[in-house]
């Protein structure tokens, strides 16, 4: 009994000590809170623009980067000869003036004078010549595709260059080629360029590279010697988040000024929050169902999918409005052709009565007419008894694609086609789809356009893109011929009908069933910076850098 009393006493003592300890730690956190307030007010001076994203940059090498995030940063460090303004129209940049020859094969650029690289060395026509030549010759950089017909660069005088192409060019590559300094890159071999991580990028652009804390943030500082009007933000910092919830909370609590991408549900949650404005804009992206139409005898795809009727029937079974409603929470536009509506006049508008969409009756009718009759198990089969039963693969972590896949399985079943959905990680799916002997039937993923010009997205299904971007192994000489014609027609009035024809052709061939054009969802704080202009493609993370250069402190 005595022992019990001792224990009681000890217990009491411990509990009191425990409380004391608790109070002490609460005090420590409280003090930390005090320092937080001071450091926040010191660092949040509205001279720095703070951007949040969940998509980290890869390298700062303009020849080898592959991420949009690297592009976003590099496009403020390097200048292009021409650039896109907020309306996504070309305007002068490092070239003060430009002109095209009558045959559309030569472009002459009047370069700005007195321009200096960030390291103080003078910029010259020789840098332009070097950049175009090395990119074209060794297929380097994201924009190398635009230099397929490159011929030569001629230095007319110190401030004037002419770039010659073998064919007329509808798209001026000067909009996509970042000009790099010869004095830094000129001595490197192509393989050295490929492996170089360019720790301290030197450009002529409005911002100078300051630092990159790997996995944390990238900072650039204003270039006081830039040729254009000085932007208001002294520094821009892109902070990396691994979790969208935390990123959105950081915007709401004032630690960030703008977000490059906000998931739909979190975006909805930002509506009505104080000092935060969520913005929905058109994007240059779509998600599609891709069907293996490879004619390679080694292809493992189901040969029944080579029949256009079957592909169209799959297209008719889908209700795209419902897909947008359920998979994107309404933040998108039902899909049809391969160019999103953000392309404006370039997009072929298919009347809804003619769309291969949401018409299960028509699907059944064309399948019946083509001799695919419903078997005893409810699945249609051809006259040899081969069932319309296909494998469907999607990326497990892309929720909207998985949901769309599940809905697709149901809608196809309703017209007598069996789909078996399997989800994989993105890399594995990419490796399966891009196998030279493709052993798959149907997949789901998407494309972003590399430019606001239609050329890039139209180039994807080209025969010579098999083994590169062509994800459905589509091969159609008529398509290729039409593509080449539009790509070499610089006059927009003549080019528009060609671009329309090619989309219609590809649409009716139904190797792509475009599901939707998703919206670009961004959000910014209204109490720090003002002047954000919503633009198709996004205020930031877009082809134009003008929002970064034109915002002003509130």
């Amino acid at each position, binding site marked *: 009994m005595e022992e019990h009393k001792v*224990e009681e006493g000890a*217990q009491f003592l411990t509990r009191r000590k425990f409380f004391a300890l608790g109070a002490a730690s609460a005090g420590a956190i409280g003090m930390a809170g005090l320092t937080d307030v001071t450091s926040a007010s010191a660092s949040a001076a509205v001279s720095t623009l703070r951007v949040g994203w969940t998509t980290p940059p890869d390298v700062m090498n303009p020849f080898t980067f592959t991420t949009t995030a690297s592009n976003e940063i590099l496009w403020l460090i390097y200048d292009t000869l021409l650039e896109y303004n907020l309306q996504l129209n070309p305007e002068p940049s490092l070239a003060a003036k430009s002109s095209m020859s009558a045959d559309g094969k030569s472009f002459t650029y009047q370069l700005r004078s007195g321009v200096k690289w960030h390291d103080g060395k003078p910029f010259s026509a020789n840098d332009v010549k070097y950049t175009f030549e090395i990119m074209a010759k060794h297929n380097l950089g994201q924009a190398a595709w635009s230099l397929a017909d490159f011929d030569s660069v001629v230095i007319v005088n110190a401030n004037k260059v002419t770039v010659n192409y073998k064919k007329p060019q509808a798209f001026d590559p000067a909009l996509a080629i970042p000009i790099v300094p010869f004095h830094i890159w000129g001595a490197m071999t192509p393989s050295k360029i490929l492996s170089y991580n360019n720790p301290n990028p030197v450009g002529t652009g409005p911002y100078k590279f300051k630092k990159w804390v790997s996995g944390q943030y990238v900072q650039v500082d204003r270039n006081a010697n830039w040729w254009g009007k000085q932007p208001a933000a002294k520094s821009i910092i892109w902070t990396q988040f691994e979790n969208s919830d935390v990123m959105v909370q950081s915007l709401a609590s004032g630690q960030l000024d703008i977000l490059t991408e906000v998931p739909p549900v979190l975006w909805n949650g930002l509506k009505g929050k104080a000092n935060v404005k969520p913005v929905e804009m058109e994007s240059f992206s779509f998600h599609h169902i891709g069907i293996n139409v490879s004619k390679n005898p080694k292809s493992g795809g189901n040969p029944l999918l080579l029949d256009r009727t079957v592909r169209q029937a799959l297209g008719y079974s889908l209700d795209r409005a419902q897909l947008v409603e359920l998979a994107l929470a309404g933040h998108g536009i039902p899909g049809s052709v391969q160019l999103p509506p953000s392309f404006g006049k370039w997009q072929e508008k298919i009347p809804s009565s003619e769309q291969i969409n949401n018409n299960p009756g028509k699907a059944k009718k064309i399948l019946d007419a083509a001799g695919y009759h419903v078997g005893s198990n409810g699945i249609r089969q051809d006259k040899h008894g081969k069932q319309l039963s296909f494998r469907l693969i999607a990326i497990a972590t892309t929720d909207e694609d998985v949901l769309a896949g599940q809905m697709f399985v149901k809608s196809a079943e309703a017209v007598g086609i069996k789909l078996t959905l399997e989800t994989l990680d993105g890399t594995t799916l990419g490796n399966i789809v891009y196998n030279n002997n493709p052993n798959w039937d149907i997949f789901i993923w998407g494309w972003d356009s590399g430019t606001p010009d239609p050329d890039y997205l139209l180039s994807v299904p080209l025969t010579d893109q098999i083994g590169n971007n062509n994800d459905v192994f589509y091969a159609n000489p008529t398509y290729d011929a039409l593509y080449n014609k539009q790509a070499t027609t610089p006059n927009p009035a003549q080019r528009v009908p060609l671009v329309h024809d090619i989309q219609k052709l590809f649409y009716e061939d139904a190797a792509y069933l475009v599901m939707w054009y998703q919206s670009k969802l961004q959000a910014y704080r209204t109490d720090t910076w003002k002047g954000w202009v919503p633009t198709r493609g996004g205020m930031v993370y877009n082809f134009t850098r003008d929002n970064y250069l034109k915002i002003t402190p509130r």
Partner: protein
Amino acid sequence: MSVRYLAKKLTTLVVTLYVTVSFNFLLFHVLPGSPIQLLARSGHYDPAARAQLVKLFGLNHSLFTQYFIYLKNMLHGDLGFSYVFRKPVTTVLGGAIGNTLLLVGTATLVTILVGVWLGVMAASRAHSLTDASITVTSLGLWSMPDFFTGMILIFICGVWTHILPISGLVTPGLVTGPWGHFVDVARHLVLPALTLTFVNAAEFSLISRNTLVDVMVEDYMLTARAKGLRRRTIVWRHALRNAMLPIVTATALYVGMILGGAIQVETVFSWPGMGLLIYNSVVQRDYPVLEGCFLLFAIAVIATNFISDLLYQVLDPRVRRT
């Protein structure tokens, strides 16, 4: 401890390492899919550029040759070149290891101290209200997923009260001296480290409580009490020492895992440590970085086990005799 014992243990250590290293190499090179194809998808490389990449990363050699090149380079401290970062793997790993050691190392230290302390508190008042509440609370926290506890702390400390930073390792762009930098990092460290401690302390408190409860009823405990020793001395010096073995085992396992990082907590708090690096490398098929990571883990686990084997010898005379 005999020299023979040490030699035997060391031999096992070297052989285990060699087997792990070879398996590590094979594992990543027999996997289907080519990283070059992955780079090419978004990079629009033509065949010539692709061939250059293949050569750059040494993928043009036979698997066998690649293996020997790998071994030779490894012995020279060269773990290869990251496909994604275009930097030496040692550089990529270096940054992540530092960050992980800071987070998981601090958290582990606190976890063990707090866990054992709670265990001792519970055991010395076995079957009391204190015991029950410590056990129930720690079990409750243990059963919560890391990310959930992390999110709750984020909401309390970052969103409602703004007392602590909720993301990253440093305040982006903050210009300050060494002391300011230290304080900045320390403040960023609090929430993720606290999360790990909350979730993991139970492991140590339960192990130490249960072994201690067993030890406390031994005859020599009664003897100690009969000698008139103070209760605290009895518990901390006599009982805990004899309850140490399972705690050392758990610690060894735990420390071996430190380098693995804490992927969920690193994700929630955007802490650029090993967990995140491994996850991203898996997604991006960055073989050289993955190989480097797994090599490090192998070394860490094998080394801590080696050390704990030696520690047993010191702590437990019975092991010494066998």
